[in-house]
C-alpha cells in the first residue's frame, strides 16, 4: 500500500541536509508552508539556498529561518515588502546573497526543471540589468534572453486537501508556485489542511497528482470563515 502521509515533522523533513537548495511555495504569506518552515528551523540545517517569490515578511516562517542565519542565498523576484525587515538587515550587512529573477522567468525556470527542459529563451528582461551577461538570440526579429531551468533538492509546499497517494488540491490564490515547485525538486514535501480518503478527491480537480509528491503531513490551521 502506498502511503505518503507521515505523522511527525521529523519524518516529514528527514534527509534535508546543510547546503540544500529548497523551493518554498507561496506568494507573500499566502500558500507559504509555515509549519514546514518552522520544522526546518527546528531541524537546524544551514547554508541553505532558498527559492521563493518573496524574502519573508514579519518575523515568522521564511523570515524566521533567515533571522536564524540559516539562509546563504535567496533566489526571488520581490524581496521587499513593508515588513521584510529581516531580509533587508541581512542584505545591508552583506550576510545574504540575492539572485533577483523576474517573476515570470522564476516561474518558468521552475516549470522547466519539472518538465525536463534545460533552458529556454524569453524576451522578458532583455535590455535590462537582469539580463546582463546572459546569452541573447534574435527569434522572429525580437531579442530573447537565455534562462536555465532551476532544479532543487527539496520543495516545501502548502496544499488544501491531500490523500495517501499525495494527490493535492489548493485553495484559491494559495495555489501560486506550489504545483510547479512540487514538480521541480528531488524531494517534495506538502503540508495539507485536510487529509481525505483515497478516492475522496474528484480526479477532475486534482491539481498536483501524487507522482510529484513524496510526503504529506497534516497541518490543520482551521477553515476560513467563508
Amino acid at each position: 500500500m502506498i502511503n505518503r502521509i507521515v505523522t511527525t515533522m521529523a519524518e516529514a523533513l528527514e534527509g534535508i541536509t546543510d547546503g540544500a537548495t529548497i523551493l518554498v511555495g507561496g506568494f507573500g504569506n499566502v500558500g507559504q508552508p509555515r509549519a514546514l518552515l518552522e520544522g526546518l528551523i527546528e531541524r537546524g540545517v544551514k547554508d541553505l539556498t532558498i527559492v521563493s517569490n518573496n524574502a519573508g515578511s514579519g518575523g515568522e516562517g521564511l523570515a524566521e529561518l533567515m533571522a536564524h542565519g540559516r539562509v546563504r542565498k535567496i533566489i526571488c523576484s520581490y524581496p521587499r515588502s513593508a515588513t521584510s525587515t529581516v531580509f533587508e538587515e541581512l542584505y545591508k550587512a552583506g550576510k545574504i546573497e540575492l539572485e533577483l529573477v523576474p517573476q515570470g522567468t522564476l516561474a518558468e525556470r521552475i516549470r522547466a526543471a519539472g518538465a525536463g527542459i534545460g533552458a529556454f529563451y524569453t524576451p522578458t528582461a532583455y535590455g535590462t540589468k537582469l539580463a546582463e551577461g546572459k546569452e541573447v538570440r534574435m527569434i522572429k526579429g525580437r531579442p530573447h534572453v537565455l534562462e536555465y531551468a532551476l532544479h532543487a533538492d527539496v520543495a516545501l509546499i502548502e496544499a488544501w486537501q491531500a490523500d495517501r497517494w499525495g494527490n493535492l488540491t489548493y485553495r484559491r490564490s494559495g495555489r501560486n508556485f506550489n504545483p510547479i515547485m512540487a514538480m521541480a525538486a528531488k524531494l517534495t514535501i506538502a503540508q495539507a489542511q485536510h487529509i481525505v480518503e483515497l478516492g475522496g478527491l474528484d480526479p477532475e480537480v486534482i491539481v498536483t497528482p501524487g507522482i510529484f509528491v513524496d510526503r504529506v503531513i497534516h497541518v490543520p490551521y482551521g477553515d476560513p470563515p467563508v
Partner: protein
Amino acid sequence: MPDTATVRYTPLDRAGMAARVAQDIPEGWYVNLGIGIPTLVSDFVPPDREVIFHSENGVLGMGPAPAPDKVDPWLINAGKQHVTLRTGGAYVHHADSFAIIRGGHLDLCVLGAYQVAENGDIANWATGERDVAPAVGGAMDLAAGAKRLWVVMEQTTKKGEPRLVKRLTYPPTALGAVKRVYTNLAVFDVTERGFVVRDMVPGLTLEELQAKCEATIHPPV
C-alpha cells in the same frame, strides 16, 4: 488677482487619472493592473461592462475587496490585499499565470512608472539606490508580454522633474514597450514620431504641457 497660469486648469487627482484610463478600456478585454494608481482603475469600470482583471498570483476574474466579515485569507492580489473572485473567474498556478502574461494573452497591462522615453522604453522597477535591495516582481514580464502597455503616472516628479523623457536615466524595465501614457495633465500615444498628445485637461495649452516634458511632444494629427 492670482497668477492665471495656475488657475486656468485643474490637474487630475489619482482617482481622476484612474477614471480617465478606465474610459478607454472596452468590454471583453483581459487586463492586468499594476500596484498604485493602476489598481484604482477597476473601481471606474462600470459593473455592466465585462472587463476581466488578472492578478499575477494566479487570479483571473478578480473582483473588488471583500466585506470585512467575508475575507478569505487565501485570496489576495499582487499587492497582497484581500480581494474577491467574480462569477466566472478561475485560479491558475504561477507558470500558467505568467503564460497568460508572457504569451501575449492579456489585451492590456496598466503600470505605474518613474519615466517613459519617447521610444517607448519604461523605467519602473529601480531607482539605482545602492544599499536598498532591488525588487522586480512581475514588472518585466508584464511590460514585455502584454499586447498593450499603458502607463499611468504624474506628469512630473514631486521636485518638478519631467517623467516624459528623451532617454531614460533610471534603469529600464523593458525597451520600446509603452503604447500610451496617462498623466494628471494629458494622454499621450507613443508613436514612431515620439509622444503625440491625445487629449489634455481643459484650459491647458500645448506650450504649458511641453514645458513639463523633456521629450518633444507633438500635437494631435
